[in-house]
């Protein structure tokens, strides 16, 4: 009797030890968070008050820096892809809480890359109004509008500020980029997908909820010589394409935290 009990105890502890060493229990789940740190070069954006210089030597400030993130997926080392469908996020530099996106219930595993779309995919862009809740609810924007009511569609990316090089009377510049490809006519499609490989794996465990720290360099918006002096207002999709092609490259994974809870 005693022996059996002993064997059982041994068996159980061996079992647990086994788990410990193989490390990943596929039944375990935890969350993964993405932190979007918006920068100019390597410095965090300071809204309104700080003046920067772009690749064309133009001075500029930033008063608004917003973008939609959707269709996030995580790819594990074994090649499996985990998709987070029907989840839409609006990252705003002015709202600290909006910069963290938490993905719940991620199965334990080692994840090597993260992908997402900048914008609101075309299916959602033409969906019934009942599908437009949370950050997709036009009533949620207040004065910082992210929806074109006259040309039905979301503004995927919005950057505004001032520059002495702007031809506008108030020296402002406004980049409002949208365009999901059109409902019936084929129009400019400025949806962009971003895939970022992580040098450090994101190791989801029962006691590890990784935080993927992304660095977003607003300076990249001006690469390929996008000049404020040439165009201080970009609000139509065809002109917006050049801006979208630039900003799709502004995202990078800085590092991954795999801290035990």
């Amino acid at each position, binding site marked *: 009797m005693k022996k059996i009990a002993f064997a059982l105890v041994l068996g159980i502890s061996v079992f647990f030890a086994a788990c410990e060493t193989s490390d990943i229990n596929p039944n375990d789940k935890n969350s993964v968070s993405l932190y979007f740190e918006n920068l100019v070069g390597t410095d965090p954006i300071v809204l309104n008050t700080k003046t920067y210089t772009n690749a064309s030597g133009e001075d500029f400030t930033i008063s608004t820096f917003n973008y939609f993130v959707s269709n996030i997926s995580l790819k594990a080392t074994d090649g499996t892809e985990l998709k987070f469908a029907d989840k839409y996020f609006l990252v705003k530099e002015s709202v600290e809480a909006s910069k963290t996106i938490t993905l719940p219930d991620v199965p334990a595993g080692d994840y090597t890359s993260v992908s997402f779309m900048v914008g609101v995919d075309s299916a959602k862009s*033409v969906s*019934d*109004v*009942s599908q*437009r*809740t949370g950050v997709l*609810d*036009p*009533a*949620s*924007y*207040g*004065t910082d*509008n992210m*929806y074109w*009511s*006259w*040309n*039905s569609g979301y503004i995927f990316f919005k950057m505004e500020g001032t520059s002495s090089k702007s031809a506008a009377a108030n020296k402002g510049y406004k980049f409002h980029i949208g365009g999901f490809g*059109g*409902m*019936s*006519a*084929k*129009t*400019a499609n400025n949806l962009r997908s971003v895939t970022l490989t992580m040098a450090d794996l994101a190791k989801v465990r029962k006691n590890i909820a990784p935080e993927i720290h992304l660095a977003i360099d607003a300076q990249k918006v001006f690469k390929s010589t996008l000049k404020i002096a040439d165009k201080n207002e970009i609000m*139509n*999709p*065809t002109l917006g394409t050049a801006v979208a092609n630039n900003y799709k490259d502004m995202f990078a994974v800085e590092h991954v935290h795999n801290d035990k809870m």
Partner: protein
Amino acid sequence: MKLKLGIVLVVSLLLWGCSKEKATEPDPLLVLFEKPSTFPNTSYKMESNPITEDGFLLGKKIFFDGKLSRDGTISCAECHNQPYAFTHHGHAQSHGIDGQVGPRNAPALQNLAWGKTFFWDGGVFDLDLFSLAPIENPVEMDERIGNVLQKLRKDASYPPMFKKAFGTEEVTTERFLKSLSQFMLTLVSANAKYDQYKAGKASFNTDEKAGLTLFNEKGCASCHPEPLFTDESFRSNGLPTDFFRNFVDTGRYRITELKEDKYKFKVPSLRNIEYTFPYMHDGRFISLEDVLDHYTDGNMANLETLDPIFKQNTKRGIALTSKEKSQIIAFLKTLTDDSFLKDKRFAP
């Protein structure tokens, strides 16, 4: 007042019930919207927003409420007057808040359930999404939809109406927009003299008959086909582009940015055309005579996108004698639907 309306509604429901051959429908409220037998299927997904009496009454209240504008002065009805088929009577271009003027003429609000796109340039593809545009337009209502909902939440009369229409008092974007859609969807005009003539219940005089024939044979019907009198396509009928001194309206191009769409506008329905003056997207023509002169007199602009149908004669346009023009106009006036223009269900 509301009671009276309710009674009128119920009475008309009853009457409708009697006049129908199969009076079997158990839900009498369906009368608020009925597809005319001559009309095609709706473009609007009716099942996504079933029309109820309470939803309709809420939508109507919203349509007539100035709270939708920044300073409380401008309601939807300000620019969409029922006696003129819900156009902005007396205004070539619509006047909004602070007396500001936009570049476009308010079109009739009728048979919207069959609309594939909205606005002269078709920029909105879903009626439910439409109302955001006038509310947020700085020269129309200049308000934010979030503020509008907040104002309705604070107005004691609204939350109970939302409850009646949608089950709870919650005022949401979806409910707000869908109730407005419910009201607008009921604006069906299908009982003009023309419709009665087609149904064998009225007769046309010689001019009206000749006008109908000309309308079909001279090509008007190729863009303005019955029964809706629009094919919902985008076309150029050759309006000169220099109407405004400092602004050129590129029409559909503004939305698609495709060269072939430059200066094209959505073909408007001609129902109730007698009352929807002034005409065209910018309200440049005051009378139907002016419109017909435009089609016939060779004054069409030689635009690259001008519809080929207008390029068949030596003179751009459609050849018509003055007699033929007046006959077409006589026919167009048979599209006036008095029962729609005076329908008490649509009055505040």
